[in-house]
């Protein structure tokens, strides 16, 4: 699958729950929102290896 996070695009092998993808990437789900094909998805969503997932950080310090 293709994952875009903080402007960086990378290809990884993954299929499973979105929350598990975040765990695999070491990203806390509390600070990001996930999009598939431009549409917001929940962390419970099942992802396939063919998906293009955008992980957008929505919480910053300050």
């Amino acid at each position, binding site marked *: 699958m293709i994952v875009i996070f903080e402007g960086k695009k990378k290809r990884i092998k993954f299929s499973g729950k979105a929350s598990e993808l975040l765990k695999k990437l070491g990203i806390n789900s509390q600070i990001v*929102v996930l999009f598939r094909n431009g549409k917001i998805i*929940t962390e*419970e969503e099942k992802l396939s290896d063919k998906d293009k997932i955008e992980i957008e950080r929505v919480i*910053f*310090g*300050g």
Partner: protein
Amino acid sequence: MKCSICNNRAVIYLNYSKRFLCKRHFSNHIERKVKRTIREFKMIDGAKRIGVAVSGGKDSLVTLHILNKILKNTKTELIAIIVDEGIKNYRDRLIKEAEDFCKKINVPFKIYSFKNELGITMDEIIKKKKREKSCTYCGVFRRWILNKAARELNVDRLAVGHNLDDIVQSFLMNLIRNEPFRLARFGEESGLIEDEKFVTRIRPLMKIPEKEIAIYAIVNGIKRDFFGCPYVEESFRHIVRNFINDVEEKNPGTKFNIFQSFVLVRNLLIEKYKIELGEINYCKSCNEPSSKEICRRCELLKELLKE
């Protein structure tokens, strides 16, 4: 995933209540919760004019959006107060978003700048000072300007966008630093300080988790681009934020539990410190409310301008 209520596509899963919600039911959930908070703490009772501190970030835009919805067809007026700290390529972008949003929903706004009010911008402060104290300068100066602006604009409440995460972080930070007095000053409204020169602050989003505010902003077309301040201090608050988010991820509902403890402890602290506080002072330099002879804003500004 489908909405637990209507079967439409879910935009969020609320881990702490094990529910999926679609755009419509999630928006209703947030708006109902904000209304309940406003009622519970009598935030807008009797207010004729409410000022909303708008930075252009998600929290302040959502505060303005929801208050505008609630106050539509009532006699209470809204005005947005925008503070321009003078941070190039950051605040100017957000101010543009704030202005556009105010125009879109037809809410009047007024911009106050650090340059006009203090004679110095945040960009200039950073050039003079170490970056570690940037949030201290910015926070103290912004609060001072907002209070003065709110008074000048004749508002009887000042709404700020503090969310559940902000409150819970501040609570834990104060506990860790052993500064219970500060806790008494923070909460649903200003708490301890009652003075005609101090405009009462309200926090309508204080029971909404920060991530839910972001999702509400996205699905309602309020905000789509998120970016952080270039001068942010990644220090103590950062550690506390990460800690709470880690615990929340493993134990959903933790933030709400900490919040409930905060409300209980704060009420007890207000009783304790109200007796010790006595009368409020005014700063000898700017004549604004202050707990000391010279307020923090004047102390910091003096130090900056003499260099």
